[in-house]
């Protein structure tokens, strides 16, 4: 299922004195099965965009096409549930949405809203709790008895339980320690690979964008200002800097090396391993002479 944004504009509090233009003329596509990262500094409109991906917000101009269904300003769409079932969003600090008496019930809440039977929902909860790296015994506990990181995992399981076709993540690792971050990101990546799940990641971490994404969208003041693969975009560091963004450490290191040595690597490297390999290739081929 593809999602297309076509010339989307969004104004908060439209028609009041407090109106605020948050998105203007935003067009891009999230192709099925891809991993797309959206980056941009604070207030650039990232969270506003992702709320359009499952019709939580309706554009004030332009349209959003979600797997064939059109959401636009003039048409009041009925039955948005169908869309929301297909596009799952993990919001920032998803642990703030937990409310049920037990972890199991909380995970079952989403699927049951979409008409999944109780047994089926329970099965999904049991299956998922391990996927998010928690022991079975957690299922019977109250979500409020867990640590922050555990709560986050339960909330994520609650979204995964809807079995969406597209998974949207708004800074899913904020506030976790480095190990927690890595575990959660690796889990999303594994899901993406295993199930071919389209994934949209909003992040402030250039490292994560470089490491996980196939495509990147850069936002600035409510517009899309750059689009392309991480390799393309990260080879334009000055431009990124003008939007208040940086490049991953690996790229920064590569730049420093190229500056000092006056040599150029074959391509921008996105991971440490890649950089080490490229460097050794450079050394063997000629740099070392």
């Amino acid at each position: 299922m593809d999602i297309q944004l076509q010339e989307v504009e969004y104004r908060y509090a439209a028609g009041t004195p407090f109106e605020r233009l948050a998105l203007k003329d935003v067009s891009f596509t999230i192709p099925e099965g891809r991993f797309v990262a959206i980056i941009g500094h604070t207030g650039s409109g990232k969270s506003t965009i992702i709320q359009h991906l499952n019709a939580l917000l309706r554009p004030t101009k332009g349209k959003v096409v979600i797997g064939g269904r059109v959401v636009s300003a003039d048409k009041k769409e009925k039955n948005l549930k169908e869309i929301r079932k297909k596009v799952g969003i993990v919001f920032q600090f998803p642990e703030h949405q937990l409310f049920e008496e037990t972890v199991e019930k909380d995970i079952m809440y989403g699927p049951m809203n979409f008409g999944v039977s109780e047994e089926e929902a329970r099965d999904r909860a049991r299956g998922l709790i391990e996927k998010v790296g928690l022991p079975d015994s957690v299922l019977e506990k109250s979500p409020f008895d867990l640590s922050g990181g555990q709560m986050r995992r339960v909330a994520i399981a609650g979204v995964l339980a809807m079995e969406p076709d597209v998974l949207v993540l708004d800074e899913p690792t904020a506030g976790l320690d480095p190990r927690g971050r890595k575990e959660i990101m690796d889990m999303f990546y594994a899901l993406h690979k295993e199930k071919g799940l389209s994934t949209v990641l909003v992040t402030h971490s250039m490292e994560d964008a470089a490491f996980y994404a196939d495509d990147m969208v850069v936002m600035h003041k409510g517009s899309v200002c750059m689009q392309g693969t991480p390799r393309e975009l990260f080879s334009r560091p000055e431009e990124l800097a003008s939007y208040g963004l940086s490049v991953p450490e690996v790229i920064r290191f590569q730049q420093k090396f190229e500056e000092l040595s006056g040599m150029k690597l074959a391509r921008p490297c996105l991971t440490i391993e890649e950089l080490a390999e490229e460097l050794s290739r450079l050394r063997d081929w000629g740099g070392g002479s």
Partner: protein
Amino acid sequence: MMEKMIFGRYLPLESPIHQLDPRAKLLFTFGFVVVVFLANNVVTYATLAAFTLMLVYLSKINLRFLLSGLKPVIWLIAFTFLLHIFLTREGDVLVKVGFLEIYEGGLRQGFFISLRFLLLILVTSLLTLTTSPISITDGLETLLQPFKKLKLPVHELALMMSISLRFIPTLMDETDKIIKAQAARGADFSSGPIKERVKAVVPLLIPLFVSAFKRAEELAIAMEARGYRGGEGRTKYRLLHWRWKDTVAVCLLLLLAVVLWRLRS
């Protein structure tokens, strides 16, 4: 989405009324609410209305804007008017349509009471339109000082009000976020039978309260870490200045009271 609207009632303009000390405005408003009840004939009501219009003029607030803010109560005023017309049977019969009779007294009564109502609301609205919530809190705190002797924790009440003001936008945002997070999980807040709708707010309310508890905890810790230990020994950053204008305003109200007292029948 709604965050900036809340303080929308306060219009930061530069007018003689805006510049008054909040204490003066509070006293004036409370006084006015009492004085309004003095009016009981055409002359007194006309005086009162003229006085109110003068206040509106001085505040530099667009009358149309002011009236548009009264939408929620306008129909009530109209309804009061009609009821009084039909239910008061005094004086001559003016109109008679079938069994409905409109008396002169009814018309007058309906008109007066609706007007009184309208004026009350206009003046109280003026207070909130020309005074920021923070100043109102400050003003109330100072006005309530004498009650400290009666063990009323005036300082705590004022701080409580200002913290609650400060958290309005934050908690509204929070509400909005939770509504969206649950909607993304398929919660439906706007259809189905009553029972479903009532049940649908539980996933909103529990997280909202839990986050408020957590906030309270963190905020209290932050306050103590910054040396908060109750009202004793505390100094104040915001100081109010009572000027001659404020005295004039209060005197004006007294004058109005005397005039009305004289003119009422």
